[in-house]
C-alpha cells in the first residue's frame, strides 16, 4: 500500500504539490515511484522557467520507463533539487521529503482547487491497483 501524505494536493499524473503561502514544492508520489521502480535519472528545468499548468517541467527515468512530469499548477521555477542529478534514488527512498523536484511561485493559486486532496488521491490509487 503506497503512502499518501495529508495536506498535499495531488494530480492524476501522480505529482504532488505542497503549498506554503505563494510557494509550491512539487514532487512525485510514492505510488508513482513504486510503479516506476528504481529511478536512475531525473531531468529538471532551469530556474526562472515560466510554465503553464500541465506543462512538462522534467523527465524521470527508471529501469522500466521514461515519463514526463507535469505542472500541477502554473508558475515560475525558483529552485530545483540539484541533489537528484547525482542521486536520483532519493525519489525512491523519500518521495515526499528529500526527493522533491522543484519549487515554484504560483501564478494563479486558484488552479489548485482542481487538484485532489489526500483522501481523493488515495482512492484514485486504490482504483488503479
Amino acid at each position: 500500500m503506497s503512502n499518501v501524505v495529508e495536506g498535499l494536493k495531488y494530480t492524476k499524473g501522480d505529482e504532488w504539490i505542497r503549498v506554503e503561502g505563494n510557494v509550491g514544492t512539487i514532487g512525485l508520489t510514492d505510488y508513482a515511484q513504486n510503479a516506476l521502480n528504481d529511478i536512475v535519472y531525473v531531468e529538471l528545468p532551469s530556474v526562472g522557467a515560466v510554465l503553464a499548468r500541465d506543462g512538462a517541467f522534467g523527465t524521470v527515468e527508471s529501469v522500466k520507463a521514461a515519463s514526463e512530469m507535469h505542472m500541477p499548477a502554473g508558475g515560475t521555477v525558483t529552485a530545483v533539487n540539484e541533489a537528484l542529478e547525482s542521486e536520483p534514488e532519493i525519489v525512491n527512498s523519500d518521495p515526499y521529503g528529500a526527493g522533491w523536484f522543484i519549487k515554484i511561485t504560483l501564478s494563479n493559486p486558484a488552479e489548485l482547487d482542481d487538484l485532489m486532496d489526500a483522501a481523493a488521491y488515495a482512492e484514485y490509487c486504490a482504483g488503479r491497483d
Partner: protein
Amino acid sequence: MALEPLIYELSSPGRCGVHLPGLDVPASELPAALLRTELDLPEVSEVDVIRHYLRLSQLNYGIDKGFYPLGSCTMKYNPKVNEDAARLPGFAALHPLLDIEDAQGALMLMYHTQEWLAELSGMKGVSLQPAAGAQGEFAGILMIRKYHLSRGDTKRTRILVPNSAHGTNPATVSMAGYEAVELPSDENGDVDLDALLAACDDTVAGMMITVPSTLGLFEARLPDVIKAVHDCGGLMYMDGANMNAMMGVLKPGELGFDVMHYNLHKTFSTPHGGGGPGSGPVAVNEKLLPFLPGPIVGILEDAGSLDDVPLFGWVMPEQSIGRLKAFHGNFGIIVRAFTYMRMNGGSGLHDVSRYAVLNANYVRTALRDHYVVPHDRTCGHEVVLEGHWKDVPGIHALDISKRLMDYNFHPPTNYFPLIVPEALMIEPTETESKETLDAFIEAMKNIAREAHENPELLLEAPHITPVGRVDDVLAAKQLVLCCVPIPDWAGSPEFKTSTD
C-alpha cells in the same frame, strides 16, 4: 550453460592457426626500433577458433532458433529465399550512380514495390526513401506540415497523439516542430472520444494513431475519430507498424487516412532487431501526393507494345519535402520485402494477417484464466497481459520474462504499453505452428503456478543462461561505454553473474 572464455584465455604459447609458406626471397631484418617484444595476440589453432565462435553464436537467441514473441516488433520468420534474391549480383553489386538505363531491373522492382504498397494501403502514392519506421513517421508529419503551409494555413501548431500510440509518435511530432497533445484512452482501451472532440480546433494539424493500437486493439470507433479530425481541418496519420494485422482486410486509405508508413522489416519479413537495417516507406492519398519525399520511381516512357517494358526512372514530386536519405532508401531491404510479397501473393498476404490475428487470439483465450487480460476482447496481431497477481505482490512482469528464458522462449516485450501496469506484450506472428503456441502457453501457465507455489524460481531466473540477472540500476547509473580500463566496481559484490 558455461560462460564462453575469451579467445585470449584459450591462447597457448606457440600454437598457430596459420601456416605461411617457406621464404623464397632473401630474409631482411626489421629495424629494431619497429620491433615489439610482446604482442598481445591470441595463439590458437584453427579448430580452437572455429569451436570458440560457433559456441558464441549458439549463445545468441534469434528467430532461427526459436519462438520470439516480442510484442510490437513482429519477429516473424524471415524466409531464406529473401536472402537469395537480395544476394543476386544484379542487385547486390549494383552501383547507385549507374545510369537508369543500366539499372532498369532494380528500378522496376522498386516501382512494383511502390505499387504493391499503394494497393495494400488503398493510397495513391508511395515513397521508399525513409530508412526506418521513425523516419517514415517524420516524413509523414513533414508532409502534413507542408500541406497546411502550402494552403497558407499557419495557425496549426498541435498534433494529437493517443496514449496508446507508439512512443515514437510524440517524438516525431516534436521533431517536426509541433506540440504533441496526448489523448487519454477510455475504459475499453479506445481513444476517449469526448477528449478528442474537446481537443479538435483550428490549431490541430493532424492526429497520429497506431492501428491496431499498442494495446493490440482495433479502435472501435475509428471512422468517428477520423471524421472528428477531418472536420476541424486536420489530417490523419496512421502508424502502420502493426500492418501485419490488416493486410488484405482493411485499406487505411479507403478508411480516410491521409498518410501512413510501413515497416517493411516487420510486416514483410526482413531481418531486424540487431540483424539488419529497417525500411519505412510512406504512403499518401491524393492530397499529399505532391509532397512525397523523393525521388520516387516513375515510368518515364510507356512500353511500346505488350511484349515491351516501360522505361523506369527517377521522378521528384512537385512540392517534395525533399530527400531523406542518400541514394534510394535501404535497397537491400526493399528487395527482400518485394520477394516476400511476391512469394505470398495477394491472397497469401491476406492469410498472413488472418493467421497473425488468429494466433494472438489463441494465446489470449488460452491464458485469460491465468493472467489478467486488461482489455479482454478480440485483439489484433498481439495481446497485452498484466504480469502480476494481487496475491503474490513480489512478482513482476520482469520475473515472468526471466523465467520464460528457462523454458527456452524469448521473453515478450515488458512494460510497454505504459498504460498497462506490468505489461507483457505478446506477438506470436503467423509463422508459428499450433504446437509451438501450445508449448509457449504451457510454459506461461507453469510460470503462473510457480509464481504462487515457488516464487523464488521466478525471482532467481534465468537459471540456464551463462549470465543471470544483471544489476540494471547500476548499469544505467554507471555507464561504461568502452571495454578498457575495467572499472573498480566490476570486482565488487554487486556485479555478479550466475557462474560466480
